[in-house]
């Protein structure tokens, strides 16, 4: 026992004495052993009670164990126009559903064939669904195989249910849109969830046979409109009948969306655009509140019918829509970009004033064209035409009002005559910079899917995308909204709105507010202004006055409206291939705002293969006439 005399690191204890204490230790260890036996004894007793005594009872419960969690789907939120006119309803409809677990093995084919006769869906598809659900880890949730059954079909099916184990008739609401054509591009539609979406969303309570927003507001506001699914724990018997509900988490109905769109205005805008578009393949118009960015009307022609996507999709109608060269499924107000033509002079003009390139008194003479010496071949001249040859010498107001191309060639690219720079222009970089500041070349951030960003060219872009150096002619074309620059009608209406409201580039919206299922208003938290252009108020005043003159006494005179002073700019943009006679196809534009003194709304009208003053501006005038002289009056306002 010598090791006890020295302290050693591993020996922390004195030796255990023999005798009484050793016996005490042995006793204690005996009791711990007893504890082990007792613990497992207790467990064994309880286990014997459950498995041996009550085993039969539990076995029966396991066999009939149909304790299921049934999802409780929330009611989807509704959509209203700005005055509370409902634009959609959830209409109850019958649907045929299958509970895969209850379809007896071996009978999948028979039942699918029987269903095919009753509901008209191919048996192979039904069978595939049954087999897939059987193999999944949730074969109990009823899986809809055919929606929107007619009452007769539902009745016939219900009569046959006894012979079709696993088949159910369930009630599944169908989205039915009012104004389903007029509002199609804004409302969008809901459609069946696809495999990829289901994988992504199943943890958020989406079901295998769920529907979700696929376009328009239905898509953008999906998470709010949908609500939150609840669940119900039910015990069912072998045939799937619910015996008792053990607990329920109620579903939270979705929020309703109140659009900023005024349906009356929208309807009138559509009528006017359709009437005024002539042979144009497409046309679009946007009316926007210049202070809030709320879109009051947004029309894209042609449109489609949102209701063809409700219930079972009408395949023939869908085929027709997707093969139509006018692309009716596309919202031409936001999803397609076009050369803005002379409406772009709003940007060139503002930029020239702000950068000190021009002022109200800048006088430029237009002999009807501008000859520019080739940058590489001396002595060779390129002629850039004005749209008229009799414009003469103009100040800034007149230059914009008459939409002189030569005037804006000077502002954009300057002019060199006989090797001497007679006018210093903006140059492509500053012009591109201003175009971007006005919101071109980027999404406006509107709450609708599928927005095009448009295109703002600059020398670096051309070098990279076209593979050619930037020429002076590119700057000239850029300055009058031709060449590479392209924008959506929505982007262009925001340009006029920014000039109207003092320089705020707005973030537009089609939704004014939200509403709870109980009808309480919930303000929509959103950013109204993307950026302020920091424009000198004197320059703004010059721009506005020039746009007023364009309508009062200039190229946009067809936009005049009684009782209201309109300020605006037309555009007739060449596009496509040059025709043999040297002309091009043209798009027609008008963008502007009213009233001049106290701007309320901005409007853009775009007509594919139209003409600015000829087709677009008159439609804009009729829209503004309706808005100020009828709609506002009808809503209790006074004549302007």
């Amino acid at each position, binding site marked *: *026992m010598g*090791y006890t005399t020295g302290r050693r*690191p*591993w*020996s*922390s*204890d*004195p*030796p*255990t004495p023999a005798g009484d204490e050793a016996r*005490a*230790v*042995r006793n*204690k*260890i005996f009791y*711990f*052993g007893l*504890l*082990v*036996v007792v*613990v*497992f004894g*207790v*467990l*064994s007793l*309880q*286990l*014997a009670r*459950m*498995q*041996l005594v*009550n*085993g*039969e*009872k*539990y*076995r029966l*419960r*396991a*066999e009939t*164990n149909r*304790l299921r*969690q049934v999802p409780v789907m929330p009611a989807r939120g509704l959509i209203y126009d700005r005055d509370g006119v409902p634009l959609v309803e959830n209409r109850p409809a019958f649907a045929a559903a299958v509970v895969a677990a209850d379809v007896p093995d071996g009978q999948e084919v028979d039942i699918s064939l029987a269903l095919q006769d009753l509901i008209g869906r191919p048996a192979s598809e039904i069978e595939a669904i049954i087999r897939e659900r059987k193999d999944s*880890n*949730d074969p109990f949730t009823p899986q809809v195989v055919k929606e929107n059954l007619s009452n007769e079909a539902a009745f016939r099916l219900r009569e046959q249910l006894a012979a079709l184990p696993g088949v159910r008739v369930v009630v599944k609401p169908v989205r039915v849109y009012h104004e389903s054509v007029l509002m199609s591009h804004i409302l969008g539609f809901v459609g069946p969830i696809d495999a990829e979406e289901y994988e992504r969303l199943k943890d958020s309570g989406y079901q295998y046979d769920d529907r979700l927003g696929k376009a328009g507001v239905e898509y953008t506001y999906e998470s709010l409109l949908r609500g939150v699914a609840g*669940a*119900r*724990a039910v015990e069912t018997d072998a045939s799937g009948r619910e015996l008792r509900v*053990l*607990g329920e*988490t109620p579903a939270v109905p979705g929020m309703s969306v109140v659009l900023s769109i005024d349906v009356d205005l929208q309807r009138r805008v559509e009528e006017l655009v359709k009437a005024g578009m002539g042979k144009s393949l497409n046309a679009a118009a946007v009316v926007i509140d210049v202070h809030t960015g709320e879109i009051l009307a947004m029309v894209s022609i042609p449109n489609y019918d949102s209701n063809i996507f409700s219930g079972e999709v009408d395949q023939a109608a869908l085929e027709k829509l997707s093969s139509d060269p006018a692309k009716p499924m596309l919202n031409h107000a936001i999803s397609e970009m076009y050369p803005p033509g002379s409406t772009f002079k709003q940007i060139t003009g503002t930029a020239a004033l702000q950068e000190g390139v021009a002022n109200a008194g800048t006088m430029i003479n237009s002999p009807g064209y501008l000859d520019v010496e080739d940058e590489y071949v001396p002595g060779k001249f390129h002629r850039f035409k004005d749209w008229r040859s009799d414009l003469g010498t103009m100040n800034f107001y007149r230059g914009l009002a008459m939409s002189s191309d030569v005037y804006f060639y000077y502002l954009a690219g300057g002019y060199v005559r006989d090797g001497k720079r007679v006018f210093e222009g903006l140059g492509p970089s500053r012009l591109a910079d201003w175009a971007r500041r006005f919101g071109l070349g980027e999404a406006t951030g509107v709450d609708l899917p599928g927005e095009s960003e448009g295109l703002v060219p600059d020398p670096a872009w051309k070098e990279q995308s076209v593979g050619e150096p930037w020429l002076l002619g590119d700057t000239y074309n850029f300055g009058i909204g031709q060449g590479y620059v392209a924008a959506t009608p929505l982007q262009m209406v925001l340009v006029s709105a920014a000039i109207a409201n003092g320089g705020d580039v707005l973030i537009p919206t089609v939704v004014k507010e939200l509403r709870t299922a109980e009808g309480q208003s919930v303000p929509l938290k959103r950013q109204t202004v993307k950026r302020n252009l920091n424009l000198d108020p004197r320059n703004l005043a010059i721009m506005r006055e020039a746009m007023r003159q364009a309508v009062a006494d200039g190229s946009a005179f067809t936009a005049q409206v009684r009782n209201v002073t309109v300020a605006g700019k037309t555009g007739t943009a060449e596009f496509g291939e040059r025709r043999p006679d040297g002309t091009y196809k043209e798009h027609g534009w008008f963008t502007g705002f009213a009233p001049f003194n106290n701007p309320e709304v901005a409007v853009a009208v775009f007509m594919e293969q139209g003409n600015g003053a000829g087709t677009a501006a008159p439609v804009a005038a009729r829209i503004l006439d309706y808005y100020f002289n009828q709609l506002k009056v009808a809503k209790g306002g006074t004549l302007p």
Partner: protein
Amino acid sequence: MISWRDPRPFDFVLLAAAVALTAYGLVLIYSGTLNTSGSSLAEVVRGPVGRQMAFALVGVALCLVISRFDYRFLAQGSAGLYIGLIGALLFVLTIGAQEYGSRRWIEIGDTRVQPSEIGKVIVILALAKYLSDNSERVKDLRVFFTSFAIALVPALLVFAEPDLGSASIFILIWLGMVIMAGADMRHVLGAIGMFVALAPFALIIVVTDYQRERVSVFLDPARDALGTGFNILQAEISVGSGGLWGKGLTHGTQTQLDYLRTQTTDYVFSVLGEELGFVGAMALFALFIVLLFRGLRAAAISQDIFGRMLAVGIVIFILFQAFINIGVNIRLFPVTGIPLPFISQGGSSLITVFIAVGLLESVIVRHRQVTL
């Protein structure tokens, strides 16, 4: 002379029982994950079974290394380990990973370490060290309270996670070890009396809503038939329907149709109960009893107090983890989230119990060296 060369007989029965339990667990995890992981060999190896097997190999390796190692060296390091543990638990509480409403894990890459598991062994070491150093004065109230504090601090920290189950394990380990150390039985009974008297107050004041909810759901599962109550009911049906022989491995309707949740961790015993029945459960109990008795034997043959304390602590630890986990499955206790040692899927738990077995082996291997 102390012989370092000739280690005493390694307890192969102990290790065999541990390995057999682990293998049993692998079989149950295989069955429990069949419809989520697939059944081909490649899928099994890549899935939870393969992962658990890898943990088991690490565990056995650690066990063998530790058994070659003199456990008394660990006595010296126990204070440091203890401080590290408290730090880790504080870390978990503040920035640990959260799941099912509690913070119990530290995330390292994509693995999650649950420090309260290895913490139980560290507290056993710390208590063994303290109680053996103070074995002379173990009847002093001061020593009694100090030892209690050693267990109480980590217990409170895991309680706050909240992990009521692990907190009780810490207290039970302490209780077992002070009794073994020879504490005054009046003190021990006083402490037990105090726990019993304080329990109702604790339930009202200290225990969080989450834990109270678990207790009330335990009393009436239909109350929360969608959540925890669903699991309790389904576990009960699973075990009960297993009967004497069970429905056969991989043939349990409850297990295979996903009625059981967390069927490889908290409710792994229900898989056993359903598929292998009462007989399968008795086999499991037999393995546990063999393992625990070999642990007690280690305590009995250990000639130093530290080794004896260590062995008893480990036996209590494994015994009560098993008791509480199985008890939850058969509706003796409310849901706590204590893993079933050797069986439940999870690396922290498995490696910890193998370290514990390694310590037992270390005590056994060296028992003669002290007596010379």
